[in-house]
């Protein structure tokens, strides 16, 4: 699968780019139509990455209703992204 660029409106990314593996769950998986994907992005933080994804894929959930995990644990939205990171956006949970 070829990495896709996530720049909004087709504008080429200007900052340094990183390749991120994103896994989707629940409503995000349904809206994206896939479990995971590799994306090349110029997003510097997890928050910027979700903004990118939301613009591109029209996710219904605003970031205020999500948490974010990077490399297997919860992180803050201002987490800096590094090449090869695994990022998962966590929709509102409903265990139990």
């Amino acid at each position: 699968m070829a990495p896709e660029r996530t720049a909004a409106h087709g504008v080429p990314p200007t900052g340094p780019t990183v390749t991120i593996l994103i896994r989707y769950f629940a409503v995000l998986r349904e809206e994206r139509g896939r479990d995971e994907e590799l994306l090349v992005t110029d997003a510097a933080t997890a928050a910027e990455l979700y903004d990118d994804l939301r613009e591109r894929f029209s996710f219904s959930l605003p970031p205020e209703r999500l948490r974010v995990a990077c490399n297997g644990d919860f992180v803050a939205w201002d987490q800096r992204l590094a090449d090869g990171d695994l990022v998962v956006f966590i929709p509102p949970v409903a265990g139990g």
Partner: protein
Amino acid sequence: MAVCFALSDTPIDPAAEQRHLHDPRAGGYAAFEGWVRDHDDGRGVIGLDYQVYSELALVEGERVISEAHERFDILHARCVHRHGELAIGDVAVWVGVSAAHRDAAFAACRYVIDQTKDRLPIWKREHYTDGKSVWVNCQRIREEAYDQAIAR
């Protein structure tokens, strides 16, 4: 510490889980079983699917159990959560806590199930008698998005 939080894609056996709690110092144990019920928020439910981010759920689940040990005077605590397709009446989650005295066992059991529901990356899709299904807690947003889509 032993692994005390587990995920299962097969039916939970409460009797087998309870054996993890046995201890000669224990005066008893408290357990909570969450079952799949046939209604939610006024709608008839025929079944549901759980989806889990396993790697993170296991880490966070062990944290919840550790916190229960820090906060309450208990001996053993364990939690098992199902994933996959479940039918009405199936055990969705089982929590058990043994302790010398009942107050700590009840309080810790309550803590573990409450934190599990609040924090673990587990999602529930309910299937209703009217043929619809939704991811619980994303429902309101989803229906708004649906309304917007059909209004366009």
